[in-house]
């Protein structure tokens, strides 16, 4: 019920029913259209807000991208550092192993020259089976070099003994054993030589 107009002579207001003469089908159609417009506006507004948020809010995309770049750079740098570290570690281990080798070698005698001299004294037919260097029982005593092997003959053993005698570092050479043995189809002489090694002053 709609009341319009002004108070009349009796002080009461007139009453108007059905002021709008638009038929029900028109009103129903308009209500449907209004609902459609409302939902369209709501949807559009939501999309607009989302677009604004995407446009003006902190740009997560770019920040993530920037963070990725920084992360990649850090990773590259880390890999370089790891490579350097690995190389340093390798060098350190090499140096340590060298240091250990030098430490082990420190205070020891270099027997390589002696062994070369022994090898040069042997004939080509000599077959050495053992070379044993025994330290002295006392600190002041000489080293004992025991050479075992086989030769073609006793003469070859004597030649070897003489050749060893000529080595300056060997103070004495003694034939401890010389036995004839059969090695396969050949006869050979098995021998054992004991040498005393005399170290000269300044020998490392």
């Amino acid at each position: 019920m709609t009341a319009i107009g002004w108070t009349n002579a009796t002080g009461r207001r007139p009453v108007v029913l059905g002021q709008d003469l638009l038929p029900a089908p028109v009103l129903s159609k308009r209500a449907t259209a209004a609902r459609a417009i409302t939902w369209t506006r709501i949807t559009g507004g939501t999309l607009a807000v989302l677009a604004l948020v995407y446009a003006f809010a902190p740009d997560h995309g770019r920040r993530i991208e920037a963070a990725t770049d920084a992360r990649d750079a850090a990773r590259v740098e880390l890999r370089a550092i790891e490579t350097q570290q690995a190389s340093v570690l390798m060098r350190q281990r090499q140096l340590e192993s060298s240091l250990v080798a030098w430490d082990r070698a420190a205070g020891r005698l270099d027997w390589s020259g002696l062994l070369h001299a022994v090898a040069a004294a042997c004939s080509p037919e000599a077959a050495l089976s053992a070379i044993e260097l025994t330290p002295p029982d006392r600190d002041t005593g000489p080293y004992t070099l025991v050479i075992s092997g086989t030769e073609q003959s006793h003469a070859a053993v004597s030649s070897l003994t003489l050749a060893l005698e000529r080595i300056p570092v060997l103070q004495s050479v003694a034939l401890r054993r010389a036995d004839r043995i059969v090695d396969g189809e050949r006869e050979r002489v098995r021998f054992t030589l004991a040498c005393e090694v005399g170290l000269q002053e300044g020998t490392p």
Partner: protein
Amino acid sequence: MSAGASPIGLDVGRRVLKAAQRMGDGRVLTALVTRSELGLLEDLDRMGSTLWRRGFRGRTVIASAPERSALMASIELPRPETGAPVRTIASAELARLHGREPGGLESTVIYRDLAPNARSGRGAQAFAFAVDSAEVIADVAALEGQGGRALRVARVECGPLALARALGASMGPGASCAIEHGWTRLTVTVCEGGVPIFVRTLDDLGLSQLDQQRQSSPGSLSTFYQRMSEELERSLAYGVRECGSHEPVPTLIACPARAYGPMMEVGGTLVSRGVPVLLRASLAFGAHECSGRFARAIGLAISQVTAGVGRFSTAQEPEQMDKVAA
């Protein structure tokens, strides 16, 4: 609709289209387009151009209901507080009075004066107006189907109610009358409190009949005006008596300029015969005036104003303006 401006009131007549709009500064813009033989769509197209040139704002329109086949009468109806389907009863009663089918009618019922503490079961006198729904739908479709210049019809109201509203806003809330000399009919409307309480239409006293009379037998024009004078005297006397007014009732004469002179003569005759009317040729809204022909269009344009807050003040009786609750 722009800020401060009312919707456009559009009075769709048989001969002319009239539009009015109240602007925010109190001015009332009016525009008129004579209808052509090309139909309402063409007329509305020209009306759109006219509205644009005259400075109208917005596209929201409150249109008048088509009165080609409108039914109206003062009848007794159940009081609205009884919960009865008053509008349906009014449509059926109007259809019965005018001898047509009651279906497909949209009606407006106006109770002029609902006395409180009335005995239950007793009806109340009301002015009922009904119009064919199909005609309303056709008019709305024509108004809203104009492409780029399409209007938006916010409401369709009955013409007498809009006329009474304009008279109330211009002349005050007391009794007032309007004599509309239209193309096809002469209409006498008696209003009080911003609503119509009595409407009489004389279909054989329109300007078209006057032109026919002038062409066929110019010597018999005095007979035409004599009959018009008698009918007006009877209708106005009845209406003024219904209002219970003891003072001359301001009466608006709304007609084209070419009919204004004869109408004032007829009005003068009525006054000389003792009909208590005070003839006026224009509507005044504060410092602004406009032709009475636009009364219905103005009433349509200010319907939201008067239905809400009575800020359409008049110089006559501003203290009687009352804020009306919708």
